[in-house]
């Protein structure tokens, strides 16, 4: 097996695990995602922040051991804030995101397959067409490159990770106490 096909097979298997988990977590359902955005059902926030807490500790430990490396995405206010808000509106209207829609299609949601999927492909193609224009005028506004929180606060990784974990734990405690 070539290196390329081994890499692709790994992607497929990781995807099976990821999709399985998302479906069992309930976030491949429109009702759960829109419930989160209406602040009635906190499943999405609980899954994402637990993944972030566990993931952050693990990948930074791996990085400090020299076993892996990663490169934070570059960004700008023009790119991440405006694009993020547009994404948010689409998120509320569609009720799935690009990852969970794959799981929604697999678990038989026909609005995801017949409406959402062609929509995402069309939206991606439109962005590709507008890319040179946006790149020249919008994407460079408020550019901060590949800045990370530790560099922003001029401290080491663990002094960012420890308070982050504490905030996530506090939020979970408050959510559970409020019965959400």
């Amino acid at each position, binding site marked *: 097996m070539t290196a390329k096909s081994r*890499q*692709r*097979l790994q992607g497929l298997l*990781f*995807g099976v695990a*990821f*999709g*399985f988990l998302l479906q069992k977590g*309930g976030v491949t359902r429109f*009702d759960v995602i829109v*419930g989160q*955005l*209406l602040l009635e059902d906190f499943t999405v926030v609980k*899954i*994402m922040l*637990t993944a972030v*807490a566990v993931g952050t500790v693990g*990948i930074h430990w*791996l990085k400090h051991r020299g076993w*892996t490396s*990663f490169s*934070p*995405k570059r960004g700008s206010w023009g*790119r*991440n*804030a405006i*694009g*993020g*808000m*547009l*994404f*948010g*509106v*689409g*998120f509320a209207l*569609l009720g799935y995101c*690009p*990852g969970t829609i*794959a*799981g929604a*299609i697999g*678990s038989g*949601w*026909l*609005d995801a397959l017949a*409406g*959402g999927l062609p*929509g*995402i*492909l*069309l*939206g*991606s*193609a*439109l*962005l*590709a067409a507008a890319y040179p224009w946006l790149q020249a005028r919008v994407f460079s506004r408020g550019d901060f490159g590949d*800045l990370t*929180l*530790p560099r922003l606060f001029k401290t080491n990784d663990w002094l960012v990770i420890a308070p982050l974990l504490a905030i996530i734990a506090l939020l979970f405690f408050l959510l559970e106490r409020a019965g959400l």
Partner: protein
Amino acid sequence: MNWLSEVRWSPYVVGAAIGVLSWFTLLVSRQPLGCSTSFARTAGMIERLFRGRKVDEKPYYREVRPEVDWQWLLVIGMVIGAFLAARLSGDLAAVWVPARWAAAFGTAPLPRLLAALAGGILLGFGSRWADGCTSGHGISGTMQLAVSSWISACCFFSGGILAAWFLYRVVA
């Protein structure tokens, strides 16, 4: 193996497992979990069916090549994984209109399909504008402590909460 046939698992268990999964994708494949780039690559492959090799010359597709890669197969795998999970718990849907939508806007499939199409267009456009989605920025980027990802994730949810309030509380 009763737990495999349960419809829902605890969100904390699922989240922790996704966190562990993200260690292994970095360690084994040197890739972070992410999804939306694959939709852009697919859009390029479809465009190529109509416009031929000229598509590869577009500035966007010179950076995001319309080809099958690790993440593209990850997304295919996700369809299969979710199918298996739903099959094991008898949770396969075959439904056009989700309950929350039906409660707000009725059970007719066409309005739901049009909204899903419009939402999908904004989602595809916005995710490529922001250079990531709820997994690439929201999970993988935030755990790398990237400023771009934290801003994106906050805006995904701010925009989503505002739009959901408007759609399901004001319009409906």
